């Protein structure tokens, strides 16, 4: 845990947005201090009933935001998990990844799992079929299997026994094994249902006594998604531009003979080779491990054949050479075994990404010269004010301005070193230095504040435009009906226009469009800032 003030606030506001105020209040109490049920009830005594507290707590546990364990006095203690909450914002991005890698059924699976927390395979299938009639049973099952095989889904440990009212979980089990039997559709079992007592009344058509894989719950493996996002970030940094789009493009199964657009051959080669290097790393046990990835040319050749790209050996070697030259120390050549051994230094890459973000922030707030100062200080560690002035070739006044501005925002820090035993100002050196982890910690808090403000602003806009949105929701079914009626095209258009004019006059519609655009911008900003937050957090764990 160990989040600062803004991080806690951000988590609380995320929960409040999707679960409501009650759950948010419970979450806040647990975030501040992990406690037991009795303590929790005491803290929230006047504010809500115990039933609501229990419901809120079960919801949070269901989604994995709160975990529990038995302490020494044999009572269950509840601990909040702030990281899980932050993954909620990157939820749509995870769905996008699943969709581009494995198709739209995988996307529906992800959506179901996100909105329900945890589900068994059978329940997922049932829900998808309820939402979308045309889904094919075997399709869904295959997609599920693929997601599990590439570790994007992980199983919740099954309950083994119960001690002091608290379920104990199985310690060693394979977290990615698919269940052997999945419940078939109810028609085959309806004869059994009518004889058994407890289900002689078939209230809901889908209620079944026991699924074959009941109790085997699956959830999204956010750690793996984070690893994937990290790879994307690094490739973006290395190559830039449309590279990440190509990465997922690479993994999609293509039909035979489909033409790959040959825009720029070098670009194409380098992108693909970089992606392949990361693919080697894909199903490692811990996707967030910071070990270097080593890849030899023969490995890359094998992957090229597997993915049916048209890259010959000299192409691969050329790409590796370019990467080594251009990536500023991230990709290095280790040796010549197996046709050439190359390594990707992940720690270095993340450090570069964070520096890059810091620099762009400085450029936005101050000027380009401030970046010069910062780079100078980073390479030379401790410098006096005069030395900065001399080495950066700026006038004294400018150098002083830049330095003070940087210190104020927390990119550069000051260290007084005394010449004599006392710290008399005239006789101390004031040394400036750059301490990147400290800066990044401050930036993490800043980022959390940013995300929180974005969410609040979105909520505010939603509340303001609520009336308009409701009207729009009412108009849509009418328009649908008109479209499906058997009138000619012209008549349909006319009536649609009439309806729109009646319910949503011009300025209202303009307002609605403006709202939609601002909502899209806010959400996109949230997505981007969470990616940056991810990069910063990874840097702090180095």
């Amino acid at each position: 845990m160990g989040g600062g003030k803004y991080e806690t606030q951000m988590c609380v506001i995320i929960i409040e947005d999707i679960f409501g105020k009650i759950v948010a209040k419970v979450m806040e109490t647990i975030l501040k201090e992990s406690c037991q049920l009795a303590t929790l009830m005491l803290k929230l005594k006047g504010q809500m009933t115990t039933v609501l507290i229990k419901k809120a707590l079960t919801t949070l546990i269901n989604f994995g935001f709160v975990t529990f364990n038995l302490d020494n006095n044999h009572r269950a203690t509840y601990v909040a998990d702030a990281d899980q909450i932050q993954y909620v914002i990157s939820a749509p991005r995870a769905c996008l990844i699943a969709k581009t890698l494995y198709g739209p059924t995988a996307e529906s699976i992800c959506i179901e799992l996100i909105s329900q927390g945890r589900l068994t395979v059978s329940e997922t299938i049932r829900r998808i079929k309820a939402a979308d009639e045309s889904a094919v049973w075997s399709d869904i099952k295959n997609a599920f299997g693929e997601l599990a095989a590439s570790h994007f889904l992980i199983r919740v440990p099954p309950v083994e026994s119960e001690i002091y009212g608290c379920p104990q979980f199985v310690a060693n089990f394979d977290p990615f094994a698919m269940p052997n039997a999945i419940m078939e559709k109810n028609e085959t079992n309806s004869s059994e249902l009518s004889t058994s007592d407890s289900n002689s009344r078939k209230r809901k058509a889908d209620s079944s006594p026991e699924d074959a894989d009941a109790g085997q719950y699956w959830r999204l493996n956010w750690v793996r998604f984070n690893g994937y996002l990290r790879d994307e970030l690094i490739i973006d940094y290395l190559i830039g531009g449309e590279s990440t789009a190509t990465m997922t493009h690479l993994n999609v199964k293509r039909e035979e003979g489909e033409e790959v657009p040959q825009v720029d051959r070098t670009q194409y080669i380098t992108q693909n080779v970089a992606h392949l290097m990361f693919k080697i790393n894909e199903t490692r046990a811990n996707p967030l491990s910071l070990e270097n990835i080593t890849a030899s040319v023969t490995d890359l050749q094998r992957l090229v054949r597997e993915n049916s790209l048209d890259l010959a050996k000299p192409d691969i070697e050329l790409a590796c050479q370019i990467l080594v030259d251009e990536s500023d120390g991230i990709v290095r050549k280790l040796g010549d075994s197996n046709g050439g051994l190359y390594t990707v230094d992940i720690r270095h890459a993340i450090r570069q990404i964070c520096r890059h973000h810091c620099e762009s922030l400085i450029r936005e707030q101050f000027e380009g010269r401030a970046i010069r100062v910062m780079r100078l200080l980073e390479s030379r560690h401790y410098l006096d004010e005069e030395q900065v002035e001399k080495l950066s070739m700026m006038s004294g006044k400018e150098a002083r301005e830049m330095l003070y501005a940087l210190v104020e925002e927390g990119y550069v820090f000051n260290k007084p070193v005394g010449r004599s035993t006392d710290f008399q100002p005239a006789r101390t050196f004031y040394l400036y230095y750059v301490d990147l982890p400290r800066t990044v910690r401050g930036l993490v808090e800043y980022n959390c504040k940013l995300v929180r403000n974005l969410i609040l602003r979105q909520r505010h806009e939603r509340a303001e435009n609520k009336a308009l949105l409701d009207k729009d929701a009412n108009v849509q079914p009418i328009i649908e009906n008109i479209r499906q009626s058997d009138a000619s095209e012209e008549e349909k258009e006319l009536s649609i226009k009439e309806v729109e004019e009646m319910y949503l006059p011009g300025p209202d519609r303009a307002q609605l469009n403006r709202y939609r655009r601002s909502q899209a911008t806010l959400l996109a900003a949230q997505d981007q800032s969470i990616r940056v937050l991810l990069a910063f957090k990874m840097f702090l764990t180095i």
Partner: protein
Amino acid sequence: MSGRGRGGGSSNTMRSVANALGIARYDMAKMMSQQKIEPPELYPKVQRNPVPIEMTTDLLYVSRLKVELDQRMRDSQFFIEAEKEDEIKRYLDKYSIIKREKLDIDMSQMPSELVWRRTSKKEAKESRAKKRKIANDDSMLKEKLNRLEEKEGKNDEEGDEEKPDDDKDSGSEKSAAEEEENPLSDDDNQEEDNDYISNYFDNGEGYGDGGSDDNMDGDEY
């Protein structure tokens, strides 16, 4: 004298201010009254204009999906709202409530102290089994009566324990031990949808926990 000093002092400062500003003294009062105080700016000033965000297809998809997901979460069973306590019944109330499913989670994965349903599952199962068997066999009456007795006896101690339990802070060991592993949800759901049945059959078991179904319904909403 002090007044004069003060008066003298104040007129002195006024005169110096007016001189500094280059306007006549009598104009100052007029200016002060005319000066309107504007509300502070909506957005703080930034030194540079921020770079606008580029909406790639990725981001467009992400934002649309997020809107849908949000809406889904808000309409789901997990969105918990406190019951509004308003004596005045408003006409728009019935249009403003959002229909949600009842909260239904597999409780076997959680500590048993978190179970919020009042009556225990065993009782519910037994009472249902009883209601069904009534139509079947007359000879079952004796069995039924025996079980009723048993249940009433257990019910008294359970009913007393369960109710103050909810108000007390700790979950009792007894109710925890009596809870079975199977999910409560299935049976309880059927129990609550059985409003019809509970009104239809009044087989005299209702003294100890009469109207328990009603109690549960009132509790859930």
